[in-house]
């Protein structure tokens, strides 16, 4: 326990999150009172707007009904944007976690300089504005950009790849933007992985594959699920990247919400609300999937 706390010293941000819960008085009315401000803020800025957008999405010119939802599926651009959003978020979250996992696993077993360097690199990555990083991808992926030039120089292709303004470009951009965030989340979770358990399993006769299945994956599934969900949820709200790196057919729901709200508030509010509700349902579905991936907690207690 003491060791875990020592390691947290090196993660000031995460330490702050984690110690908030532990620092509370053990129980009783006094401790619960500390939750009141947070609950009020959540009620005012999360729950009420959600309820209000539900209300807006169900209100029609004559009363209440599902008209806005019917319209949502009647216009081709909305289902397409819905599909795009799901596709971008889904692929980006899997890609991010797959790319970040090996490095985080390696770093999580180290302390000192390697760990500090990695955290520093993440900090720098986060400090550079996402807009700037997106724009640099625009330069890199353009017809005369570096990626094309390299690919042609190395002989992978003899004509321009035309990566910019495509789904691939959007995915590259999203994955890159999300990598440091996913790494933070993964690193925190993976610090709790006990690698000695693998040695224990192996000494008890488990082959490497069996040890992976019985000991390693059960420890990693929770952090992996958390990172997947984090990236998925955050990317559903990113509309700048598809706008800058994607083509006309790569619109996402966030972009439609923006234009609905900006150009035609009279009818747009209802449509935007429907998009919002649909996005919410999508995130809910992703949450359920990630709960399934996360499985039972690794450090278990029997229910009393």
């Amino acid at each position, binding site marked *: 326990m003491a060791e875990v706390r020592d390691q947290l010293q090196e993660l000031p941000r995460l330490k702050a999150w984690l110690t908030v819960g532990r620092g509370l008085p053990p129980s009783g009315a006094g401790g619960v009172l500390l939750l009141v401000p947070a609950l009020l803020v959540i009620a005012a800025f999360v729950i009420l707007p959600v309820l209000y957008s539900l209300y807006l999405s169900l209100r029609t010119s004559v009363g209440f009904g599902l008209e806005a939802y019917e319209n949502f599926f009647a216009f081709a651009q909305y289902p397409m944007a819905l599909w795009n959003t799901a596709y971008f978020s889904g692929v980006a979250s899997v890609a991010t976690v797959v790319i970040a996992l090996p490095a985080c696993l390696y770093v999580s077993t180290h302390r000192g300089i390697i760990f500090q360097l990695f955290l520093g690199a993440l900090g720098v990555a986060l400090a550079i504005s996402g807009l700037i990083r997106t724009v640099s991808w625009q330069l890199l992926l353009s017809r005369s950009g570096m990626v094309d030039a390299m690919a042609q120089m190395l002989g992978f292709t003899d004509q321009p790849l035309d990566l910019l303004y495509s789904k691939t470009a959007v995915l590259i951009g999203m994955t890159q933007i999300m990598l440091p965030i996913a790494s933070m989340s993964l690193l925190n979770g993976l610090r709790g992985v*006990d690698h*000695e358990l693998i*040695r224990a399993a192996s*000494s008890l*006769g488990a082959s490497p594959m069996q040890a992976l299945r019985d000991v390693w994956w059960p420890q990693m599934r929770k952090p992996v699920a958390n990172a997947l969900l984090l990236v998925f949820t955050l990317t559903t709200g990113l509309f700048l990247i598809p706008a800058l790196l994607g083509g006309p057919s790569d619109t996402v729901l966030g972009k439609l919400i923006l234009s609905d709200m900006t150009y035609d508030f009279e009818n747009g509010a209802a449509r935007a609300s429907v998009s919002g509700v649909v996005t919410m349902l999508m995130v809910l579905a992703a949450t359920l999937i990630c709960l399934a991936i996360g499985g039972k907690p690794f450090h278990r207690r029997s229910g009393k």
Partner: protein
Amino acid sequence: MTDKAVAAIRYKNVSKHYGAFTALDAVSLDVADGEFVTLLGPSGSGKSTLLGLAVGSITADSGEVALRGRDVRNLKPHQRNIGMVFQRYSLFPNKTVAENIAYPLAIRKIDRAEIARRVANSLEMMNLGPQSHRFPGEISGGQAQRVAVARALVFSPDLLLMDEPLGALDKSLRTGLQEEISRLQRASGIPTLYVTHDQDEAMFLSDRIALCNHGKIVALGEPRELYEEPASEWQACFLGEANILPVNGWRRAADHVSVDLAIGTTVTAKARDMLAAGTSAALMIRPEYVHVGEGVTPAMSAVDATITHLAFLGPRQRVSMEMADGTPLIADLRPWERPGHVGDVVRCGWNDHHSRLVEC
């Protein structure tokens, strides 16, 4: 099935280096069938490296490690059939106590009824019945330790390795568990290699103790032999407490040695045959063999010393003294003896067959 004449594990001239650091320097050791051998030494002496070689987490730079005659290089870690008890127990937190113990059996695809029977036996033998459906996070350190031992023994391994299994426990809890480990090991007859830096534990449990220092086994023998006949000052002081009296010179006589102590007295003592003439040496006497005042008989070798401290410890009392040249001398007396008071100059003596000339 297994040949009893072949050592359970044999290390032959094994060396291991980490950069400039020598973890093991041409170490050889055999553990016979049914034997309990303890590797005792300070941290960094190479004792954990020896265990690592056996389980397969470390490979040797040179030399040979063989399990029942089979070279470990031909065996993957999970094929070695070695039970290992880790210092931090390494129980699986997502499995109950019973599931933890069943794991090595389940991996070996033993049928369910047989697993249930053996796990039940094991739980009963370790007094873990009430804990069988608890998770590792819900049991005490002592219980976790017993689960770890049960899990390592349940599949009847060819060899049991324990890496400071009692290191994380209270002193009072340790004694009970030492007895339990000893009882289980004798009952199962599984050869055991045990690592510790606690000398009492090593003496209590072992058939033989291997004293490790600087990547070498500096002494190997039964606890009594190592305690009573240490070869060097380091060994004498590492295993038990010892008075070390500086020596000016020594000569070998028929069956003893004649020793000139630095304070001027000449005494006779025992020495190993291996101690070569001219080696710089010191006289070693265990505190319990030093008599003070009335206890000194004319037949004993004797010196004068000033009492500097007296401590009553219950079963014994510790008398700290200083000889004329400043050499400290300690004596453990029976509780009823009256050695004198702090500041008194007293006569201290010992029987010659209790003092040994050791290399320093």
